[in-house]
């Protein structure tokens, strides 16, 4: 199958999933107990005139499928209406929070790779040795540590006891030295579990590759071990790490919800939790939709990148 055909097939699978994601998000407001109008006005008592205008705005008098299509049309142009709780534009609110979460998630992902890849290589090369065992224990501990707890403990030690970092974000733009310094602890908190997963995954895929015939050939022709590992084995072993990027994204978003709350980080996760507690359903809807769509698109992208990197995958 040519690359073009493969990409088209993948997209044709992703489209119904995207539609399903939007349908599920749409039905969210209708699944709530009671009249959806209550959720849309923020559970206050409003004048009949306001209620009528909101009913008209969300087309609540139309059949459900029609409401869905009309909603979908608005979603495609990023029109989510206004939050009944804060009165602000939902799309703008979400958009303002997004960069902070992207920065945090990106930093954590980089940290996970920066720790996970070297550790995974060492663990695979020194298989069964003390370094391998140590990395296994560290990875297990990293997976088992609840991220909210790790965040709290880091905050306690470095923020409260030692006083090296602030406990709330500085009032500075996102791309500033003060913010970068503050971001250190959230990044570590968020990245630890991912680093552990990357380590273990890379280790097992490296071990599988180390047995391959081409490794023996490379050694036989007198390449230095370093070259064999870094140039030959690692490149092949990294593919499974690429595949889990979509999963990692989901994992990091989950983590961000918790970590942002601990560090008062002005991101999507904190917005979501606050919206749940305030019953600000249009904001929840927009946030959840954004998360769902980005994960589907990320998985699509990963599959395509994978097919470009490894022609065997296009069957």
């Amino acid at each position, binding site marked *: 199958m040519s690359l073009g055909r493969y990409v088209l097939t993948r997209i044709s699978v992703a489209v119904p999933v995207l539609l*399903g*994601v939007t349908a599920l998000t749409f039905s969210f407001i209708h699944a709530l107990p009671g009249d959806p109008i209550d959720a849309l006005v923020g559970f206050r008592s409003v004048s009949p005139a306001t209620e009528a205008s909101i009913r008209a705005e969300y087309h609540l008098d139309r059949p459900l499928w029609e409401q869905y299509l009309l909603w979908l049309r608005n979603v495609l142009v990023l029109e989510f209406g206004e939050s009944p709780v804060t009165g602000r534009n939902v799309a703008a609110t979400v958009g303002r929070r997004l960069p902070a979460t992207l920065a945090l998630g990106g930093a954590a992902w980089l940290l996970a790779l920066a720790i996970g890849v070297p550790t995974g290589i060492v663990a695979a090369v020194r298989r069964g040795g003390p370094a391998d065992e140590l990395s296994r224990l560290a990875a297990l501990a990293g997976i088992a540590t609840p991220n909210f707890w790790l965040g709290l403990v880091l905050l306690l030690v470095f923020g409260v006891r030692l006083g090296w970092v602030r406990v709330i974000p500085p009032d500075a733009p996102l791309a500033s030295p003060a913010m970068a310094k503050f971001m250190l602890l959230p990044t570590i908190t968020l990245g630890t579990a991912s680093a552990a*997963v990357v380590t*273990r995954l890379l280790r097992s895929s490296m071990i599988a590759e180390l047995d391959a015939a081409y490794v023996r050939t490379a050694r036989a022709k007198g390449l230095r071990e370093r070259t064999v590992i870094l140039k030959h084995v690692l490149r092949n072993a990294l593919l499974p790490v690429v595949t889990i990027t979509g999963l990692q994204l989901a994992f990091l978003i989950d983590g961000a919800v918790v970590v942002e709350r601990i560090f008062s980080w002005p991101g999507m996760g904190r917005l979501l939790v606050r919206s749940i507690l305030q019953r600000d359903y249009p904001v929840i809807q927009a946030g959840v939709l954004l998360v769902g769509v980005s994960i589907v698109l990320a998985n699509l992208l990963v599959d395509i990148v994978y097919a470009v990197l490894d022609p065997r995958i296009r069957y």
Partner: protein
Amino acid sequence: MSDRRPTTDRGRIRIVGFEDADSDRPGDANSNGDGDESPAATAGRTARPTADPESRTGPTAAARSPSGTALEGPGRSRSAGAWQRFRRNRTAMAGLTIIAVMAVLAVFARPIEVSTAEYTITLQPVSLAPYDPAQPFVGPANAPPSWDHPFGTDWAGRDQFSRVLVGGRYTLTVGLVAVSLALGVGVPLGAIAGYFGGWVDEIIMRLVDVLYAFPFLILAIGTVAILGRGFWKLVVALVVTGWIGYARLLRGEVLSVREREYVTAARALGIPDRTIIRRHVVPNAITPVVVQATLNVGTVVLTAAALGFLGLGLEADTAEWGAMLSRGRDSLLQGHWHVTVFPGIAIFLFVLAINLVGDGVNDALDPHRDASDDRRRMR
């Protein structure tokens, strides 16, 4: 023997090792089943519903090895062999010990009483916890650890040690109940999707794909937003997020198992599909699901605790480990470290133990698969 006797009216296929109910020893079929006949022979034997669980699992274990010879020797069931391997695994046994100790502590933390209209039946009278976990001001508020309060007290002066002990109840039951129910949903759906294929498969798997687009915690938060808070609502939220993983994993395994000769043979013998699925397909495809489910107890506990921490799990004053941490941040900024540290260590220990056990289960059930496929840990 709970044999359904095949009707004599219809034509029967005579298969070696299948004809005699008396020779129902696992070793028999395996020694007979050499070469071409082995899959059919083992299939025929497993096809018969037997009352004895040992002889039921024996041949299926043999069917997995290509030549049809039992690696375990005659009379050893697959589960017994797995338990042997598991017991030799020291780290896994350490994990199991930790879980057992925590379970015992949780059960005996406070007396368990069942009270109906006017009777109160005490099921378990022992009380390891020195104080009532819900009783405020048994000591000064936010007191550091001391002899009276080994883990200190929280903001309301409640004894942390008692709360951590009792908190184990919520964590253990939520983990166990949510994973069992999720298995109960995911396993049948995954088996049906994989076995029948076609539009049934399409519908189930598209639903799985859609749910998979949402991260675990986000989906759970969404469900909690709809249902509200409480123990069973929390369990429902965790089941909604949990079943998809099992369905997907089992479907993939079933796809390969259903092409095996023993399934074809069972079909040729006219065994109904539901029996084939239950007796031949699922037992041979379930191994990775069991491993995943074990590891998932950890994930579920972490998610439940995270929800508790966010104030979206059980009621805020419940002595659940996650919920105990939700006020931890404020106490922490005032320098009360003990409020955070002890419930966190409890969660950490439990999840670590579950992961050790999960690795052990993996090695015991499926020695050929690499133990460290950590993709599953993320779900």
